[in-house]
């Protein structure tokens, strides 16, 4: 059993918080994991990614080989495409549909979405809207973690536990917002996967 995940987004969107929750849940479940991340200059509003590898066996490389990722989990739609060649042909893309536009040449959204839809298995959710519904636009990362959760090899209760651990130092209100964001994201993803959905 293994799961290789590319986490993607823009510096400041909190992909390392997603990684924290998954890492700790994996440790709790007795899995081995490696998680390569980007620090320093690249973080300043630039494209950021993290390679997250889970397995019940030994993991060698810190980087996922191109073509081997089981999932791309992205908090931003165009960023999900930046690592397209990492995805295995059987892999799934779980991405937000809310663009983060901090560059002058952001491509046409229809083109972004139609490229994402060339992947057979995908879950596209409006993380911005859902995060606002949960109580904070900053909770988009937890919305996306929720949206991906049914496809992770980790138990939901362990993910929820480490969301609590992560946000507890910032107060009960933030814990509640982020747990809600996770649940709403999970629900939105389940709705999207109905056979009637052509999107």
């Amino acid at each position, binding site marked *: 059993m293994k799961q290789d995940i590319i986490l993607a987004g823009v510096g400041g969107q909190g992909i390392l918080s997603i990684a924290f929750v998954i890492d700790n849940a994996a440790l709790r479940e007795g899995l081995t994991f490696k998680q390569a991340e980007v620090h320093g200059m690249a973080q300043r509003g630039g494209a950021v990614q993290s390679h997250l590898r889970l397995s019940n066996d030994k993991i060698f490389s810190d980087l996922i080989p191109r073509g081997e990722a089981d999932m791309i989990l992205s908090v931003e739609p165009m960023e999900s495409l930046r690592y397209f060649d990492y*995805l295995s042909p059987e892999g799934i893309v779980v991405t937000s549909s809310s663009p983060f536009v901090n560059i002058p040449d952001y491509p046409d959204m229809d083109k972004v979405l139609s490229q994402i839809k060339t992947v057979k298995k995908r879950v596209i959710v409006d993380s911005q809207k859902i995060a606002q519904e949960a109580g904070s636009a900053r909770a988009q990362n937890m919305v996306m973690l929720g949206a991906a959760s049914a496809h992770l090899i980790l138990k939901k209760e362990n993910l929820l536990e480490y969301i609590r651990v992560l946000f507890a130092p910032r107060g009960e209100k933030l814990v509640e917002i982020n747990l809600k964001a996770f649940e709403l994201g999970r629900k939105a993803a389940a709705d999207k996967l109905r056979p009637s959905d052509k999107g």
Partner: protein
Amino acid sequence: MKDEILLGDEAVALGAIHAGLSGAYSYPGTPASEIMEFLIRRSDGGKNFIASWSVNEKVAYEEALGVSFAGKRAMVSMKHVGLNVAADPFMNSAITGANGGLVVVVADDPSMHSSQNEQDSRFYAQFAQVFCFEPSNHQEAYDMTREAFDVSEELGIPVMVRLVTRLSHSRSRVQPGPPRKQNTLQYGIGKDWTLLPVNARRRFKILTEKQKELVGLADKSGFNSLELNKKNTSLGIIASGVAFNYVLENYKDQPELPSMLKISTYPLPETLVAGLVRHVERVLVVEEGYPFIEKNLRGILGLPGKTVLGKLDGHLPLTGELSPEIVRQALGMKPREKLQLDDFKLAGRPPQLCAGCPHADAYKALNKALEAYPQSNVFSDIGCYTLGALPPYNAINSCVCMGASIGMAKGGAEAGVYPSVAVIGDSTFAHSGLTPLLSAAEANTNMTVVILDNSIVAMTGGQPTFASGEGLVRMVGGLGVKRDHIRVIEPLPKNLEKNIQAFKEEFEYRGLSVVIASRECVQEVRKKKRSEIG
């Protein structure tokens, strides 16, 4: 001891703590900063051990050397180019030797994710003739750092631990061992540590005579391993550090491995290398960084009757970091199937100055003020403000190494550049800007130094600075810059016109002037607000 989830950097830091660390020193630099951040968090305000940011890597090294002189265990950590700054004490500490264990952790940055070059620190270890460990994973980062202290005391020399970005910034589980007590105070011998020629010659001879012992230690180190495939003599692989992982990654679904030598220490384990080379016809060397092992192996004349493959013959690229797929290609395996974008064109998303960044306002004013001077040049330095090289600012024309802006602006001015402008951050100024400014003040060179004082080391995540606010103004005055030409401005949109005027006036002054653009980093302001709420 409980297992912990740690960055490679943090695994090194924890290894040092458990090895009985008494003092650790560093200057922030990606990808090494997290070593000191972790140490500071675990030091309990200095009660457990000293963990401290220094003004630059040279100072950090000398502070660590002082701890070692006193018989206690010391660590100094830095990014690869930091060792250039600390090269003087580093080279000479191999000659004085270490009293308490002295470990030098250097994090290389192949692919230059956050650096100006991708120099390979193993050459420094060879240059200084000291022992060097290169871990390939988190557990090794912990274990090797612990052992590095023992080796340092056993051999009486500093020991290097070489990291690369991929390990420094990757997180995994580490199983720690029981902690060791700190050493007690025991002074070094004065005549060993006083490098007068008479002492230095004697000490250098001792160092060179130790080299055989270093190779012997490498040969018997449990971290180096040679596994021969008795049935297959066509190919053998020598791999080190994270490159070893990429080799194994590609063999994970293969029925058998070729003969492999994993190298984790330098100097090279010569007996093990000979053991592999004798067994096979072709040797592939896979290493992160420069072709260090490969060059040692090839020498000038090569290996008679053997083929050596690696970076020097184009089997692997000479620049940039390795990846599982680059190594796969070198192994001659078929590439894995992967997805491709149709005719979709991705837009780049380069790093940029944050919204509301004080540097942005400083650059806007500076650019405007310079419009009237087509022959001007802005020499810059290392920090967030180097992003001023990119649109929409296009404000700077150089970035070389810490502190270079001021020396280059002086040289430029002396060659005829006018206005000759240096742009440097407060922490970079403290690190390497004081001495060139002293030199410019002495000569009263016709140039303008702009110090961007955001009161923090911003690029590396917000470490404390040594030169900010009033203290910075006094420092600049103390170096001999005339009081009338030390201007403090506040880079804010509402002050744009005023700030343009201030710059223009200083360009018109035919001598040395310093403009300090002072406003706190917006990330820090946000952090403070958040912690007030939280």
